[in-house]
């Protein structure tokens, strides 16, 4: 799901930086206002968690691999705005030190994995959660549903951004200039494996950790803990 450099046109990459920049500013503002002092260490821990989770590649149908990202779980614990910060920093380290995802594409990757995934997943979690509290079965199921939805919607956004490239940038004879495949290829290639396997991995991770922490450390989700209600 990490778009490397060269796949997006400089213009597309810049456009996604322009979209992500104000989101990063809002994330900083939200952390300043809502993240309590003792939760700074938790945000730091969760950011490292996201980095590590993305290293666990699992085989997907079609001979490719994918991984969970942890963004929805982080959103449930510290809120989606703080999750954007945590995941963006993990992506930045991946791009700068490990060549995983491009530096020019960081705006795009942060938008997809850091913004779209935690926010849509968190929304689904809130819709499913109802009045359930940490430790309730429904709480964990809602978390799993959020994880499943979040990673799939993010995969769809990646497919759209890649699929747009040959339509936006091609030679006069129609030869693609950057990422070569259009929606007919990118959407099934990204979405189907995520619907089947990677989404399940994210759901198990998100639901499992939410169930465990909800049962043994419900204080992490308490009112006033910094987690949004």
């Amino acid at each position, binding site marked *: 799901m990490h778009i490397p450099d060269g796949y997006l046109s400089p213009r597309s990459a810049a456009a996604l930086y322009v979209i992500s920049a104000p989101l990063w500013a809002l994330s900083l503002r939200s952390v300043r206002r809502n993240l309590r002092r003792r939760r*700074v260490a938790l945000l730091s821990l969760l950011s490292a968690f996201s980095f590590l*989770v993305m290293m666990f590649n699992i085989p997907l149908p079609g001979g490719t691999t994918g991984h969970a990202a942890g963004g929805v779980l982080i959103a449930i614990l510290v809120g989606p705005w703080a999750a954007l910060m945590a995941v963006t920093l993990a992506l930045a380290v991946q791009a700068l030190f490990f060549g995983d995802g491009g530096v020019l594409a960081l705006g795009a990757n942060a938008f997809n994995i850091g913004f779209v995934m935690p926010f849509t997943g968190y929304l689904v979690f809130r819709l499913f959660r109802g009045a359930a509290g940490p430790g309730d079965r429904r709480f964990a199921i809602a978390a799993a549903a959020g994880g499943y939805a979040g990673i799939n919607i993010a995969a769809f956004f990646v497919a759209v951004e890649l699929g747009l490239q040959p339509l936006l940038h091609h*030679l006069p004879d129609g030869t693609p200039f950057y990422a070569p495949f259009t929606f007919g290829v990118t959407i099934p290639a990204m979405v189907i494996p995520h619907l089947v396997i990677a989404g399940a991995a994210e759901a198990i991770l998100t639901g499992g950790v939410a169930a465990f922490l909800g049962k043994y450390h419900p204080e992490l989700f308490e009112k006033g803990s910094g987690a949004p209600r």
Partner: protein
Amino acid sequence: MKYRTGWIVLLILAILTPLGIIAAGGAWGEWDLDGVRDRAGFVPEGMRASTDGRTESPFKEYTVPGLDRSFFHEGLGTIITAILGAGITALFAFAVARIARHGGIS
């Protein structure tokens, strides 16, 4: 240390990361230029011109230079990069969150 158990869990995750490189193949749409040629039949001009981040990163694709002679070496390299990367990420996040909250790291 705050969230001590959490940090221990992360260390265990880091030690387990070699499991994450067993899966055959790479992610869809994250190919190097040869991979693009294999799948599209050609390398688009704009892609060829771009500097692929992979070639410049110090620990490209989570490997440590020199640690590539055996699967054991590779696994060790993966663990080293996992600890290094997670550590740097944690420090970045700590610094940014502190700065956001206080306008300074101290």
